[in-house]
């Protein structure tokens, strides 16, 4: 009997969970890969060198007659005629006969004169000799250089993204060595900053993603996460600065719960409207967003304005309501991560292990069957919107209590809207949401360094995210690209029922 039970469990796990998880994750994973590839293409074609290479007359040409082949390598001679046209990113190459033996990208132009380090060039290309002709290459001369430049641009962009979001492995290693040797952790902490920043950005994504995913599971399209975040943050901020004299063990939970209550309240309104009157939640949550934004503006200019501040900002939250940070500065990683993990576990348990979740999912999957089974569709809509709003509100509270410690307009750079895409990417499953949130957080926080280090505009990241979502929403494209067969079982992402229902 016990054996049988074990066998049944094994069958369930072996047969069901992992295989299903693998199958479910395959398409999102491939979508991310294709998104990054296409992003690379965009980085490449927006690179100045590549653009120059692709333009009709891109490169400076030094006619061979203008250089004395018997003379020393003399860049100055070669460039004498064109030095005013030379630009950063141009290729210099040295030619012997028909083959190029050394090439370099012009990286710096000083006083319109460019030096080339002959010794270094000799080291890299041992057969480089005095008398080789230095020329500046054209695209038609060697299209390969364009591809190389493209490859270099993509590599630099993604390297910068990696360093900016995960960290520079070299610096991490050095910091670790320093820490072990001298007990000075500062360098190590500095080196770990990027990855912790990625986590910090992922936290609100996890909350907001859970909020939207739970809505999807119940067949509701909660576009109002952004407004619920705002209201949650506002209430949390208020409780954070107005309640004085409380110990942190009380104050912090109260402020967090305040965030949940605020978000839940903002979610329940459209939920109730839908349940009672059939008003579509998509419209009402959008409208509730605007109300929330204006309400916050008014609060910050009126009752919640920081005394003496000329700007629309709230007073600082008391330290007793801070989400504590794990490490000293400069790392900002705070206990919101733990709250987020607890929220993930809770939502997973709620959805898959309780009658409440069973009802929510049934209402989402087949409202007729839910009604037939004696579930109240209306009540479940209100419950789902309430929980969804509470989770979104937590995202707002988390930003205030963990990072900013005060409320200002625009404190959320669209977490609530991004989380719609994120929930789709995570297939509306709590664990999928975590993975998608980590991805989004990493991309977001690496994007800044990508812009500063590799001059790649931040918008590329937004575009990559958008592409990933397109591929998730239209898995046929991915299946076609990778010649995947559709699995027999339908794995449609049921987003929401039609407008009429």
């Amino acid at each position, binding site marked *: 009997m016990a054996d049988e039970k074990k066998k049944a469990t094994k069958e*369930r796990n072996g047969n069901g969970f992992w295989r299903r998880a693998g199958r479910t994750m395959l398409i999102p994973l491939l979508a991310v890969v294709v998104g990054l590839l296409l992003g690379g293409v965009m980085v490449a074609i927006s690179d100045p060198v590549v653009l120059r290479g692709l333009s009709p007359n891109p490169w400076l040409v030094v006619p061979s007659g203008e250089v004395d082949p018997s003379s020393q390598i003399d860049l100055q001679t070669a460039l004498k005629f064109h030095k005013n046209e030379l630009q950063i990113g141009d290729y210099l190459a040295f030619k012997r006969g028909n083959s190029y033996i050394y090439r370099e990208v012009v990286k710096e132009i000083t006083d319109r004169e460019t030096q080339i380090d002959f010794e270094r060039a000799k080291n890299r290309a041992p057969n480089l000799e005095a008398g080789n002709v230095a020329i500046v290459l054209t695209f038609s001369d060697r299209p390969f250089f364009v591809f190389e430049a493209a490859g270099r641009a993509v590599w630099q962009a993604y390297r910068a993204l990696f360093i900016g979001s995960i960290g520079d492995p070299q610096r991490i290693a050095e910091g670790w060595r320093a820490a072990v040797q001298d007990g000075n952790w500062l360098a190590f902490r500095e080196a770990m900053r990027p990855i912790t920043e990625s986590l910090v950005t992922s936290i609100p994504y996890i909350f907001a993603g859970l909020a939207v995913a739970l809505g999807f599971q119940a067949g509701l399209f909660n576009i109002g996460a952004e407004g619920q975040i705002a209201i949650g943050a506002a209430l949390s901020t208020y409780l954070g600065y107005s309640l004085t004299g409380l110990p942190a063990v009380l104050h912090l939970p109260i402020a967090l719960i305040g965030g949940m209550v605020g978000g839940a309240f903002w979610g329940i309104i459209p939920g109730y409207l839908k349940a009672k009157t059939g008003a579509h939640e998509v419209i009402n949550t959008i409208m509730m967003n605007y109300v929330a934004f204006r309400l916050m503006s008014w609060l910050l200019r009126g009752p919640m304005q920081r005394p003496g501040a000329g700007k629309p900002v709230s007073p600082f939250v008391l330290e007793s309501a801070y989400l504590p940070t794990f490490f000293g500065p400069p790392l900002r990683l705070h206990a919101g991560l733990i709250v987020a993990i607890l929220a993930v576990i809770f939502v997973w348990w709620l959805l898959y292990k*309780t009658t*409440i979740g*069973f009802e929510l999912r049934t209402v989402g*999957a087949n409202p007729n*069957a839910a009604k*037939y*089974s004696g579930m109240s569709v209306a009540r479940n809509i209100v419950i789902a919107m309430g929980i969804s709003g509470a989770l979104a509100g937590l995202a707002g509270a988390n930003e205030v209590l963990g990072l900013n410690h005060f409320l200002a307009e625009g404190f959320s750079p669209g977490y609530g809207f991004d989380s719609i895409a994120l929930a789709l990417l995570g297939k509306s499953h709590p664990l999928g949401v975590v993975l998608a949130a980590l991805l989004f957080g990493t991309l977001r926080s690496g994007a800044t360094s990508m812009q500063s280090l590799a001059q790649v505009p931040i918008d590329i990241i937004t575009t990559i995210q958008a592409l990933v979502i397109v591929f998730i929403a239209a898995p046929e494209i991915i299946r076609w690209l990778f010649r995947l067969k559709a699995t027999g*079982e*339908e794995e449609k992402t049921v987003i929401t029922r039609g407008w009429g229902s």
Partner: protein
Amino acid sequence: MPDIPVLELRGITKQFPGVLANDNVNLTLMPGEIHALLGENGAGKTTLMNILYGLYKPTKGEIFIRGKHAEIHGPTDAISQGIGMVHQHFMLVPVLTVTENVMLGQETVKSGVFLDKRTVARQIREISAQHGLDVDPDAYIKDLPVGVQQRVEIIKVLYRNADILILDEPTAVLTPQEVEDLFEILQSLVDKGISIIFITHKLKEVLAVADRITVLRRGKTVATVTPAESTEQSLAELMVGRAVELTVQKGEAVPQEPVLSVRDLVVKDDRENVTVDGVSFTLRAGEVLGIAGVQGNGQTELVEALTGMRQVYTGSIRLLGKEVANATPRTVTEMGVGHVPEDRQRDGLVLSYPIKDNMVLNTYYRPPFAHWVVMDEEKIIEAAEKRVKEYDVRTPSIYATAGTLSGGNQQKVIVAREFSRPNKLLVASQPTRGLDVGSIEYIHRRIIEQRDSGTAILLVSTELDEIRALSDRIAVMFEGKIVAVVNAADISKEQLGLLMAGAMPKDMPPSAVVAQ
């Protein structure tokens, strides 16, 4: 009979991942023949026809049309080869007229842009007259009865010059009278040289209309026989692969105390039309009351009102002495009512859920399946395993989603769920619609078992045979009213047919209670 078959399928094999849907199937269609393709659900009939229509590519095998090897890559090829298909679910646009629907996809135009409806309408009239298909080209589809809509589908196929006509379960949606009409039309088509493949699982119809019968079982051709050498019994055995009880063995009913008593019930449909119009009846424990009637005469709304799924306008429903008009479905369920819903995929199952969850769809919230709000997975699995075994649901595991099951097995999941509770009243609406002989036999036996254990059974069905086989008493519904209640033993099939059509037959048995 001419020698060259108009259509020949040789050694058709279709392998789906994990399923051999067709295994070396052979089928020969002679010109001017009605060839029935008979088989249980899941036997591979539809797969075979989809291969013929170019929707699937066979793994192995060849198709010959008029003696020539044919490659069919899609419906367009099939149509150009003269193959036309009438699907079980009609492909018509309800808000367009007959003419518009017929020309859809093959529009005849004049001066380049204007639809030439007049010419098409004339052609439709010609086709109608030629084959005895009585259809008004200017009528809107939404105003036409189902039987006429089916004729429009046939006209659509003929308009495209098809001479091989495939009909997929054509009688599933028709009234007995409409079935008769359809058979006449088929006969007239065959007389004009058209060949017909008739897909069905109804034995009586096959014997009535087919020239030859090919039986499929689990993807294989079991036999090709003629009606003359077959009986219902022999065909059923070929289909199922074992001896089948076609008639339900049941003893005399022992009606006891009244369980359900309905008085002057009025119910409106979604469009606020009165569809149940003053219905009254009483149902006792241990008897089967059959509600007979053509689809759409208020049965659906009646059942929904009884089970709490629809608001009652006026009137009373007393269940075990308690008023339950406008009670919630849960209240009704908890009072001991099992409900096999009419539309199993819409109401009865969550197709994306595994079988185990569907097995507890309306008992998930109470012990032993849940304590407080926490569901007991082990208990649910245990119960599901037991019920799957007990009710013979054919599935690889209880974790397979309901959507992957065949119709018969989906229905068995619902029956297992509803019958395994201790019921006082069982409402079974179209319990065997679209099911194969084996499943029908099984579900009928279970219903009678429930009756004999003292449950009151309300059976709603549009199948006259089913009503007659199971019911102890029969109530006939017509336009929202119960026009007569009779003892099942006292009334003939013809009399029932007349009552269902709204006519009052002569010689009604003395036991009949006829509405005024």
